């Protein structure tokens, strides 16, 4: 852990005694308390759900099930976990390769990803999430909550699915000032998140938009139609 800097502006190495410490012999660097780069890397690689990197960081706890372990080196250290922006491959290429795996002849199970853009009304920028990293609406909701910290999800009920058969419960949720997530499905329709079983949602969701409950009212009737026609 890097030692705290004093309040004086100091041009020396962080944690060092004073300016000019950088010219000393190597051993003095070790005693300055500055974090060695290897520690930094370890810290970085072990981070969970860090801000600014959600789309590429895999939570180590539930990460490895999705990836085939390399046959070359079964004793791989945790360093195999993903780091933001590494390997340095353009997002465009990453997306194309991920989609290829989903639809190609040689699709391998478990190594594909389902990245979708997430926008939130009022937030200055969009994010991306990999839906395949979550097993339920609750997990997705938690992840989105962390990403957009002012975002509070409405009450979802025990199974994580909105009870569409109960109109009044639904109308309460949509009348509140809480945010609700909506998504664009394969047909290009905007739907309320939570109406279909989780896996079906992952397969059909193309992008997410988190909107104010009051704005989402227009979605509910259509969502209920689709739901009823499937029942």
């Amino acid at each position, binding site marked *: 852990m890097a030692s705290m800097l004093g309040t004086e*502006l100091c041009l020396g190495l962080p944690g060092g005694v004073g300016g000019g410490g950088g010219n000393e012999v190597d051993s003095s660097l070790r005693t300055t308390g500055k974090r060695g*780069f290897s520690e930094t890397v370890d810290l970085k690689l072990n981070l969970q759900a860090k801000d600014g990197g959600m789309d590429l960081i895999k939570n180590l706890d539930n990460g490895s099930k999705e990836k085939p372990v390399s046959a070359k080196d079964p004793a791989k250290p945790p360093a195999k976990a*993903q780091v933001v922006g590494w390997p*340095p491959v353009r*997002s465009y290429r990453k997306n*194309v390769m991920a989609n290829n795996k989903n639809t190609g002849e*040689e699709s391998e199970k478990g190594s594909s990803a389902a990245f979708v853009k997430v926008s939130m009304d009022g937030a200055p920028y969009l994010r991306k999430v990999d839906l395949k990293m979550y097993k339920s609406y609750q997990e997705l909701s938690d992840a989105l909550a962390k990403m957009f910290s002012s975002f509070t999800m409405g009450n979802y009920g025990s199974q994580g699915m909105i009870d569409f058969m109960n109109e009044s419960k639904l109308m309460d949720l949509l009348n509140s000032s809480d945010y609700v997530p909506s998504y664009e499905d394969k047909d290009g329709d905007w739907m309320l998140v939570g109406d279909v079983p989780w896996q079906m949602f992952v397969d059909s969701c193309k992008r997410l938009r988190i909107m104010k409950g009051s704005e989402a009212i227009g979605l509910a009737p259509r969502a209920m139609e689709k739901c009823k026609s499937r029942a």
Partner: protein
Amino acid sequence: MNYFPDEVLEHVFDSIASHKDRNSVSLVCKSWYRIERYSRRRVFIGNCYSISPERLIARFPGLKSLTLKGKPHFADFNLVPYDWGGFVYPWIKALAESGIGLEELRLKRMVVSDESLELLSKSFANFKSLVLVSCEGFSADGLAAVAANCRFLRELDLQENEVDDHRGHWLSCFPESCTSLVSLNFACLKGEVNLGALERLVSRSPNLKSLRLNRLVPLDTLQKLLMRAPQLVDLGIGSYVHDPSSEASNKLKHAIQRCKSIVSLSGFLEVAPRCMSAIYPICGNLTTLNLSYAPGLHGNKLTKLIQHCRKLQRLWILDRIGDKGLGVVASTCKELQELRVFPSDPFGAGNDAVTEEGLVLVSAGCPKLNSLLYFCQQMTNAALITVARNCPNFIRFRLCILDPVKPDPVTNQPLDEGFGAIVQSCKRLKRLSLSGLLTDQVFLYIGMYAEQLEMLSIAFAADSDKGMLYVLNGCKKLRKLEIRDCPFGNSALLEDVGKYETMRSLWMSSCEVTLGGCKTVAEKMPSLNVEIINESDQTEFNLDEGQKVDKMYLYRTLVGHRKDAPESVWIL
């Protein structure tokens, strides 16, 4: 200098094409500056915030072709916020209002709105060429405006853009009178296009030399297009799935064989490997082959294809080719100059990866190799030293070991000596990207030997500020330096702030520089914009000077602070 009339000098300057040379010419004397400025047709602006459109227009009223680059390179890897900047609209608006006869616009990493495209299409009667690389912000609507309004359009080249395109009607917007197309590349579009409109467009474009299709253009359309455009030089295939014994396959073979001019082939966005034999007849002429979006092609089918490509100069491939496959490249492609090997699993599982062996084979077999991008499982010092000896002509050398701090697996040493050999041997090296376990030593070598180096990318390397100082002091021609996750702090940053004025830009993220250090640079160098990018959810920046800065991007500029920065960016 005054002996020749202006027209003579103009005529002489016309034959000077390179930007560097023209810049030099303009510095000779006032009259040369004046003549050069009026005769300048092409301008390249590597950082759109280094100058304003107004000043560009004032200096070069005869401008016809403009190239602009926006976001920093690391934006490609999600390290820059979505709304950071790089908007092209103000440029197009200013150019439109000035009466400049713009004919060509090339953009990289910029935000291009439909509004911009529409304004562009309506403002320049002679507009001929639009090239967008890694841009975003537009949809098929913008493309429709370009197609409909640019009557003399020759080139529409979309490379790796994020385009919002549900509806494919833009192709139908090319009027019947449009017969001037030379190049059409829509491989990055995800939506369907009107196939009939595409066929008619190709039929009435006798000058069409380059055509790159997207994934949704089926095989029978491909066959029809090839029949109508046997003069093609560059082809990007969309869907390539057929039964080799079928009638459709025969027709395709016949159509391909008629295309005797094709030297560049790419795409295969959807491919059935057993059908590749139909391509063999044209392989002997290929100088460029890009199979990096075709994960379905590997093993024997891939190597068999490559064995037909004896004239290849540029090869982009996935790491599925394996070391053995690279051996086939080495023994077949003796003219090879550029090799790019991309990871087929960009999320780093590294199952089908190449190692140092493949690279050594290629370096031994392809002595003309001068440009490399290589994503691999591992690398050794011995291999790099061998490569350096075999190929002293590298201009671009970018190595990415998938595990960011991996040492030489044989000796467990850092890769300092290997990269040191590369910079010592390759005297013309202009661009270098490092990876693997690296100490300050490699930077000592770079500072000592990499005299022509213009761009350096560093990640997870070095032990101390010394590393950065070696580079800043040694590399006199350095223009772009981008660093992430290295222990470089204020001491290195502040040693010679004047240096940054000689460079285009410096990026440092997840290093040890503090807010105080960055502020000092900004104070001492008013000709630099020092931007702090803060993407965490806190709405206010922590004003503590000792606070480490997550991301800093500084660049020289003639026009001061930009006005379009979002909340997450603070310009000091």
